[in-house]
């Protein structure tokens, strides 16, 4: 089903654009140039975070923490390998992409932990950053319950990622 979805979306988008009189080629070229800009913009942060996370992994700290928390994590069905991703996700989008891809590469993209990492990346956002952007733009001094509610949503995303992977991939 998902194999049909993506080509279908591509063709539908282009057809819709064609019907609405969009210069498809020009739009694609402009969008791709924007995409290149995004790549360049996130590169510095990805590099810093990947160096930091690779160093932390090499030091054994992540393995120790995962081993220490493994009984708790197993009880809720969460793969210990994905713990660093859960810890970093609310703080840094580039960091999460770095750690997530590190987990996907190390565990294998079709492994349980690799899939859970991918679903976590796809179903959560950088909560602290988002709250910072909105409160700075509005000059809000107190966001009250926004942060706790956002962190509840993140926690739900992490736990349900593991649940959904088990449900769909057994």
């Amino acid at each position, binding site marked *: 089903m998902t*194999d049909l979805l993506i080509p279908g979306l591509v063709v539908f*988008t282009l057809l819709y654009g064609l019907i*609405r009189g969009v210069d498809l080629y020009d739009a694609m070229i402009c969008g791709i140039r924007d995409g290149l800009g995004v790549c360049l913009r996130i*590169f510095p942060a990805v590099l810093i*975070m990947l160096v930091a996370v690779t160093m932390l992994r090499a*030091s054994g700290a992540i393995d120790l923490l995962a081993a220490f928390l493994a009984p708790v994590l197993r009880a809720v069905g969460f793969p210990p390998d994905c713990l660093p991703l859960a810890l970093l996700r609310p703080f840094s989008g580039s*960091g999460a992409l770095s750690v997530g891809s590190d987990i996907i590469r190390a565990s294998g993209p079709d492994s349980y932990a690799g899939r859970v990492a991918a679903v976590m*990346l796809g179903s959560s956002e950088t*909560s602290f950053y988002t709250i910072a952007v909105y409160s700075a733009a509005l000059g809000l001094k107190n966001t009250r319950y926004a942060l706790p509610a956002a962190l509840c949503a993140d926690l739900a995303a992490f736990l349900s990622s593991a649940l959904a992977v088990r449900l769909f991939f057994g």
Partner: protein
Amino acid sequence: MLMSRVLLILLALALVFGLLTGRISQVSQATLSGAQQAVELLLSIAGALCFWSGLMEVMNRSGLSKRIAALLRPLILLLFGRDGRDSEAASALSQNMAANLLGLGSAATPAGLRAAARLHTLAQGRGEPPHGVFLLIVLNTASLQLFPTTVAAVRAACGASSPYDILPAVWLSSAISVATGIFAAKLFRRLSP
């Protein structure tokens, strides 16, 4: 400043644990391999990221994202109550949500900020705390994206047999996360004085 602290903590932990576990030489090598991995990661996902970015530009120019925004109006009435009946707020809110659904991050934030400013003004007019703004923030901290293409590109780069096969799992997990965020926001609002 937040990220500086996060970074310092990560590196300090790496140094301390590297010394304790006797793996300091691996930690030293990691500075090189991590930097190399960053280049490899960016190169391996850049193509897919750029392609989707091109397709999204077509969605924007053709008005497809506006069309989806219009479909979201009833949902906004449901979530934001009387703020959703304000046409300026509802229009910005629906654009923000549509952009999030399509993964148009660069369009989502400006629309979100416009919606937040309007919701803030409406709440101030009533002399209330801006609960609509808080709900909007919570919605934007949860992921509504239908096609997480960057993640799929990372999976493809790592040799996944079917990079998009995680989509149903992502949708289920996103839905649970968003519902939890909305529920938590409404609950905490009631509990807060």
